[in-house]
């Protein structure tokens, strides 16, 4: 039996969760896929899951805000009682804080940052990224129960419709020792880890005051904004936008790098992007070796032209 953790974000299942459903459905070998969530999804959300391969949804009663220990206790209990042998978790922030605890509670083997379906011909082997994108590893998961945490945007979301059964179950864990006192959301912004298009800029922009062009292009393309390490170190942009080896590793469909030279640490965080565009006035910038398309030119001249072209 295959299960997924169906994280709820304001009552909704995000794309990363649908990817988990499709991943599990391709593994199920004719059996069902059981999704586990904590709390009640909004109307229509369970049907959305059923389009992406999920045949059962176990809705665990929500008695408190997210806490990895409390959620683990509940999930481990119901995952075990449903006889799940492989659990798929999306590598979101919440998924990351749960997958490790949960694998220990289930006495499972754990692989994180998984980017492809497993090879089950000889054991259970998954491909995952290592060295911040500078390499890949193949890992055999040896325990009977396996927890596989997949990197968002690694699996093509295709519809695999099925009927869905919903079951409501009680919360079995005591209240946790942690309490969420407040949440700040970046309103109207696309989270970097979920973005399909990312527009990123570096020192070539010369100062925080010049980011208007970057944000305008990103807005027109429906993209998230990102930056290089020096830019976040100088405080031009928040650290949450820093992509690279010591920042966030991302895997969008399109990554546009403006005025970023392409140091090895930066490339590590973005090299898994499907299509990379580099814009830099230095023709020797290392980024051109890692890019699919390049423009050798000054950001201040090239960006307005791109904005005009998108506007048509």
């Amino acid at each position, binding site marked *: 039996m295959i299960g997924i953790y169906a994280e709820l974000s304001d009552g909704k299942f995000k794309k990363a969760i649908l990817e988990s459903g499709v991943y599990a459905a391709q593994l199920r070998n004719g059996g069902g896929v059981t999704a586990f969530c904590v709390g009640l999804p909004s109307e229509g959300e369970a049907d959305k899951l059923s389009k992406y391969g999920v045949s059962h949804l176990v809705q665990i009663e929500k008695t408190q805000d997210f806490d*990895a*220990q409390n959620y683990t206790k509940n999930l481990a209990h119901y995952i075990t009682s449903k006889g799940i042998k492989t659990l798929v978790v999306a590598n979101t*922030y*919440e998924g*990351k*804080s*749960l*997958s*490790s605890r*949960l*694998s*220990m509670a289930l006495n*499972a083997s*754990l692989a*994180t*940052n998984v980017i492809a379906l497993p090879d089950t011909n000889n054991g259970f*082997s998954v491909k995952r*990224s*290592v*060295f911040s994108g*500078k*390499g*890949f*590893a*193949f890992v*055999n*998961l*040896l325990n009977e129960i396996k927890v596989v945490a997949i990197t968002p945007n690694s699996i093509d979301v295709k519809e695999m419709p099925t009927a869905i059964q919903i079951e409501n179950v009680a919360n079995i864990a005591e209240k*946790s*020792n*942690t309490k*969420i*006192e*407040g*949440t*700040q959301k970046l309103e109207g*912004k696309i*989270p970097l880890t979920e973005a399909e*298009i990312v527009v990123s800029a570096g020192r070539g922009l010369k100062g925080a005051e010049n980011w208007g062009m970057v944000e305008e292009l990103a807005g027109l393309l429906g993209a998230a904004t990102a930056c290089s390490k020096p830019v976040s170190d100088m405080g031009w942009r928040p*650290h949450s936008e820093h992509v690279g*080896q*010591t920042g966030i590793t991302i895997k969008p469909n*399109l990554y546009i790098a403006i005025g970023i030279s392409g140091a*090895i640490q930066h490339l590590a965080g973005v090299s898994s992007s*499907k299509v990379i*565009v*580099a814009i830099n006035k230095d023709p020797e910038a290392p980024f*051109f*070796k*890692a890019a*699919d*398309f*390049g423009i*050798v*030119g000054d950001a201040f*001249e090239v960006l307005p*032209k*791109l904005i*005009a*072209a998108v506007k048509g």
Partner: protein
Amino acid sequence: MSVVPDTTTKITFTDNNTKFNSQGVQFIINPYDELSLTKAIEIVEKDGGTVAVATVGLIETEATIRKALAIGANEAFRINIEPKDGVLVAQELSALVKTEGFDMVLTGRESIDYNGGQVCGLLAELLQWPSVNVCTKIEIEGGKAHFERDIDGGREVIVSDLPVVASAQKDLCEPRIPNMKGIMAARTKSLKVVEPQNNPITSNFYLFENPVPKQAVRLIDPENAGQLIDILRNEVKIIS
């Protein structure tokens, strides 16, 4: 604390791609662990107590462990086993936490070699402590730990009872550079070698590969930069 290849390392593999090629590689304190170490030192400077640093690794990690002592840890433990996966590391650390009776454990968000991001959660589950990961702020006040952490699309403020396991995210603090006094003091600080539990392994990294190099870049005339949008829209079909 993990000991990892320097961030500028070109990653290659050896023995028919079954092992990381460490030849000529400079090893450093994992950058996220450097943040957790610095934060731990800041906490004891303010609230009292001592900082112990623990590494699961073989003897070659000791030079890097000494660096952590030079930065300001009071004592160090090296658990003498190769850190084959996150589960093994967490099991070894949990045994040490139980014998030493720590009040709080800080880890990095992930190591920059295997990027598992697992040890914080695995260790907390083994200890049955709460866990708070990817923290950008950690303070102890009134016997409780106060955190800010990254969540998808925002930030969260959390308070937790002690003991707790937390992991460090960039922005937590500025890493410290050891000074001469620290380096001298580190020579005489305690670095205990602990024999491992030797639990059975649960996963096996058996093969590695490097990413496929990109084909030559296709250059677009900067005078006609708008052509890029046309290509992305109509040829690659990646934007609408």
